[in-house]
């Protein structure tokens, strides 16, 4: 199921118009070790940054509503403080993810801010 086409188009436009807006770098590491660094505008979510840049392994079936758990990522040790703890709603949704660890987050619930410039997250082997 893919609900996101409309929303993604809007996001692309936002990105094009962003010009001088604050951008943060986010690195996604695949299970095979391949890394991809993308630029994300502050205010987006990490999931949106992944979708806009076609990062594999982030499915985000619900379009960021914290209702599907298919945007699961592992936050790198060094970045766990800056990204914070999951809310109760996110914890409940994480129950529906697979191979959940202490460093698990739903990437649609992590906001891009200046604080997380340089963020490193790992994409799980499977999103369910």
């Amino acid at each position, binding site marked *: 199921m893919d*609900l996101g086409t409309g929303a993604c188009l809007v996001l692309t436009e936002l990105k094009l118009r962003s010009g001088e807006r604050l951008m943060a770098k986010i690195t996604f590491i695949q299970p095979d070790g391949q890394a991809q660094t993308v630029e994300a505008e502050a205010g987006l979510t990490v999931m949106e940054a992944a979708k806009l840049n076609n990062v594999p392994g982030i499915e985000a079936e*619900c379009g960021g509503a914290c*209702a599907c758990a298919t945007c699961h990522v592992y936050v790198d040790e060094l970045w766990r403080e800056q990204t914070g703890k999951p809310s109760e709603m996110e*914890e409940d949704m994480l*129950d529906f993810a697979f191979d959940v660890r202490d460093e698990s987050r739903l990437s649609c619930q992590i906001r891009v801010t200046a604080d997380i410039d340089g963020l490193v997250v790992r994409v799980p082997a499977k999103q369910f």
Partner: protein
Amino acid sequence: MSPQDQAAPAALETIETDCVVIGAGPCGLFAVFELGLLDIKAHVVDILDRPGGQCAELYPEKPIYDVPALPIVTGQELTDRLMEQIKPFGPQFHYSERVDGLSRLEDGRFRLLTDAGTEFITKVVVIAAGGGSFMPKRPPLDGIENYEGTSVFYAVRKMEVMRGHDVVIVGGGDSALDWTLNLQPIANSLTLIHRRDDFRAAPHSVEKMRALVAEGKVRLMIGQVTKINGDGANLQSIAVKTAAGEETVPCTAMLPFFGLTMKLGPVAEWGLNLHENLIPVDTEKFETSAPGIFAIGDINWYPGKLKLILSGFHEAALMAQAAQRIVYPGKKVLFQYTTSSSSLQKKLGVK
């Protein structure tokens, strides 16, 4: 013999009607309204045990902001309001049934068959199947599909099947907890596995579960299943990773509860043209490649399609006009407003 056991399943019950709507999501529900205004009574079938589709199943408590004239409405509220709006038309709902077969009869009508053995003979079919069939999520454990139906179950139809088994239940919601409480008395052993020591399920069932754990009748493990072991058809044990390390737990029946996901399902097998798992339709009648079969809502595709509730509502209105020409051939289609037409108001029960 259950219907699934036969090559050409026999119907247990046959219903002749004008229109069958497949899917009780918001678009299927609103289709009932538009069809009703045109004197077409509908039967509505859904796999879920209640109406609302994605709105009720995936985001009942989340707000929707783009339904015209409702600045904010939750998924469940929208569903409730639609149910109220279509009440005057007395739709007949067939919940917990999946439409598996759809074929055309020689007289031009259609035959639908559900997995519960209900057969419909109908003049018009409206496919409002959204993102497809809601199906339980399958944990990505190697080889799990080989055990489904023999040792791995996503629902319990007959409790007796579980008697004497080493049952493992995975999850922390109501299904996981309810089955823990129900199956514990008849299972040989019962292990509940959840990733954290915190449960979404109703507090009173959590309390009961904890009491059983204290009495030593249920084993609670905080961890995750990493591997399943068996002979290819029957499970023997599973590997569980906990904070203390990895442990092998005897298991001859496993019930994983990781929620539902949508898969296209039987819709793909009805011989309709498909475009990336969606059903192409025209934008005048929202009819599929098979005349008399319409598709509205998230399941359809046409240039410019937006998967929005409001688009599905519009599609339902135009579809109903075309359906009327099939159900009542030769009848003059009169355009009317609900505000001013006394005949429409009579149908709505407001006059």
